């Protein structure tokens, strides 16, 4: 038996790359989204010689991260990415920040030049751990092959536990070639990182008492409920029904509570519904579960929900009292906290003021009567398609079909119309770039969703500008026969930019026109996909049906009204009760203050 100088059995030793793959397998990785290069060749060589892990070759590293995000968000598992050193790593940074802002668990493996060349400005060298430090939840540089297994196991633990997020492992090439023994995942707790998931009983009792004594309660939920798993969404439904309180959701939380339930007020915030925002403004007790009082949600902070006593459930203590001071803070997993709140609510000795709750609902129903998401779709033959109508028909047709449907989006007006008019009744069906607002997210994210759910219907609701930011991934769809449908609301403008220029910058449309667009039908065909186009309202349903019926990828170019704006809207720097409901109130935006103008 061969032994090395240290007396270790070299036959039981593997290369660093082999240890890496074995660790990934033990962490449950089935798919890696990646792109090869010089520094990661040993990993690609090891991948070639095994069948446990499937590699999806993307066309740009940013897309690899978004694909892993789509995979992670639609499954609740950790998404895995593999890129080379230098430009491979820097291209991945946008995806990493996107995952950081939206709390998506990702492990991203980056190649690195050999340890002896680090710092020498070697070919394709970048200070990846330095660059990604503020772009990740945590990152590692593995300097010895014997640290490989432990580091990979720890990275997966960090990525998925507590508030999930992206983790980078930087892998110098000599470490991938060096030999070491494999070490299975440890059962001992992490030395320093031990996030708390169990709620404090006293805080739960105080929160339950506030809720039970409330006359005008609101439950406001976010992505934390989705991240806490399907059981948390189920518990939320029971809590909302037990309290009889209205429920609203952030962009990230859509689907945790069924959109078609009468207790659901729709999305809140800048483009949220009138009833959700006014309920937030007028409530006396607010329960925030897994949301972070983001500026898109609160509007002007000093006018945010002025009369309410606030309860905040978040797994990340740094989210509490960051933007909005709260009376009861519960640092816990959303699912555990909801179950505990439900039990404490039932146990609380107070009698709920049903009459006050009924009056509150009457007030809310009055706001609902504004029908704030209404739009008028002309029905004459040849009439131009309203983008809202396109989303509404897409929703209705897919709903009636009964197929499991996942929606991804790019960023902009189409994203808001999708959030407003596509009604989600289950969690993990909606993937959108919320925090970072990354144009180009939807197509690669859809790819990742389709890999995880090969038989599901996956649709990227896109804009003609956003889709061009990662259009190269059409080639990946073709290679792996991924039948993702790209549903472009084509208004020939960066619509949200155009909308702000119209409302806030005197209609000076500086650089927001999408000039020299490709012919999306021919573009689809050149990528071996099907191209469809709807010019007018009478063509819309046929195009949607043909898109869904196609067994491969499709680009459906939906030519929509160029001047449509997203309403309702809380202009920047305004309060919840200062919403613009529709075009008839657009003049109100002109009164925006200088403080409002500096906000994004």
């Amino acid at each position, binding site marked *: 038996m061969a032994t090395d100088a240290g007396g270790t059995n070299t036959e039981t030793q593997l290369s660093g790359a082999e240890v890496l793959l074995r660790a990934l397998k033990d962490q449950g990785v089935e798919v890696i989204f990646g792109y090869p290069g010089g520094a990661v060749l040993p990993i690609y060589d090891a991948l070639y010689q095994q069948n446990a892990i499937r590699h999806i070759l993307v066309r740009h590293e940013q897309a690899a991260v978004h694909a892993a995000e789509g995979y992670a968000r639609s499954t609740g598992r950790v998404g895995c990415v593999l890129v080379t050193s230098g430009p491979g790593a820097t291209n991945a940074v946008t995806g990493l920040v996107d995952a950081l802002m939206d709390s998506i668990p990702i492990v991203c493996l980056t190649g690195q030049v050999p340890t002896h060349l680090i710092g020498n400005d070697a070919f394709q060298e970048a200070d990846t751990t330095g660059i990604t430090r503020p772009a990740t939840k945590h990152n590692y540089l593995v300097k010895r092959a014997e640290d490989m297994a432990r580091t990979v196991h720890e990275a997966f633990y960090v990525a998925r536990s507590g508030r999930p997020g992206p983790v980078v492992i930087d892998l110098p090439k000599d470490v991938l070639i060096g030999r070491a023994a494999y070490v299975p995942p440890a059962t001992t707790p992490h030395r320093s990182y031990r996030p708390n998931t169990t709620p404090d009983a006293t805080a739960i009792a105080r929160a339950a008492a506030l809720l039970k004594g409330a006359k005008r309660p609101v439950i406001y939920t976010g992505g934390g409920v989705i991240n806490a798993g399907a059981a948390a969404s189920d518990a939320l439904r029971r809590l909302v029904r037990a309290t009889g309180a209205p429920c609203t959701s952030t962009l990230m939380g859509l689907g945790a509570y069924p959109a078609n339930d009468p207790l659901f007020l729709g999305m809140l915030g800048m483009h949220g519904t009138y009833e959700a925002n006014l309920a937030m403004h007028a409530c006396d007790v607010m329960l925030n579960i897994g949301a972070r009082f983001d500026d898109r949600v609160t509007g002007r902070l000093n006018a945010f929900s002025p009369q309410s006593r606030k309860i905040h459930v978040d797994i990340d203590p740094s989210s509490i*009292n960051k933007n909005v001071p709260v009376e009861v803070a519960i640092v816990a997993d959303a699912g555990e906290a909801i179950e505990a709140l439900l039990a404490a609510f039932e146990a609380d000795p107070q009698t709920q003021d049903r009459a006050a709750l009924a009056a509150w609902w009457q007030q809310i129903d009055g706001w609902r009567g504004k029908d704030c998401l209404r739009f008028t779709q002309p029905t004459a033959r040849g009439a131009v398609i309203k983008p809202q109508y396109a989303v509404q028909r897409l929703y209705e047709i897919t709903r009636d079909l009964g197929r499991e449907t996942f929606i991804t989006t790019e960023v902009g007006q189409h994203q808001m119309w999708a959030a407003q008019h596509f009604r989600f009744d289950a969690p993990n069906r909606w993937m959108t770039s919320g925090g970072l607002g990354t144009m180009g997210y939807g197509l690669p994210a859809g790819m990742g969703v389709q890999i995880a759910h090969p038989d599901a219907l996956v649709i990227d609701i896109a804009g003609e500008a956003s889709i061009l930011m990662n259009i190269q991934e059409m080639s990946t769809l073709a290679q792996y026969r991924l039948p993702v449908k790209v549903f472009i609301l084509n208004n020939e403008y960066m619509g949200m930019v155009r909308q702000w220029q119209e409302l806030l910058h005197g209609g000076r449309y500086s650089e927001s026109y999408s000039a020299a667009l490709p012919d999306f039908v021919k573009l689809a065909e050149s990528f071996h996909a099907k191209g469809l186009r709807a010019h007018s309202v009478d063509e819309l349903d046929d195009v949607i049906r043909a898109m869904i019926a196609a067994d491969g990828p499709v680009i459906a170019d939906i030519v929509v009204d160029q001047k449509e704006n997203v309403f309702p809207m809380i202009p920047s720097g305004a309060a919840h009760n200062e919403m613009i409901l529709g075009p008839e109130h657009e003049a109100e935006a002109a009164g925006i203050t200088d403080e409002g103008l500096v906000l994004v």
Partner: protein
Amino acid sequence: MTTTFDTTIRSATISVLVENEAGVLARVIGLFSGRGYNIDSLTVAPVEDGRGRSRINIVTSGTEMVIEQIKAQLDRLVPVHRVADLTQQGPHVAREMALVKVICAGDKRAEALRLSDAFRARVVDATIESFVFEMTGATDKVDAFIELMRPLGLAEVSRTGVAAMARGTRTI
């Protein structure tokens, strides 16, 4: 009922026990610069050799809300073991060391030496034209000494920043 944030600015001496690993200081500093927090002083050194831990002492200032944020943000860094707000926890000792070079002659030289004695500073280097004083104490005492040396020919200052811990039996 509305809870509001106190807008009073206070100073906070925060001690952080961290895993002694590559990049941990960069993480802490990056957090302060990335989120726009102040660093008035920062010290770092290994403190538990056998267990591979370092202690970082940070003196910062901000509203109560900002300081709570700083502590929460520090605490969620993966290699951070413990975060202690010494200012908030109660009585604590905070000391720093300064090397102060004074170049002077004649009466000023005598006065510098006399003041250094009053401040219990030690002379660690002397030439015909200069002194280097070593002084240890609370930040305001070091500040006061330096101010006194200014008219006497203050030439250079090197300070360590604050090392701090709670008084009594309490540990981090």
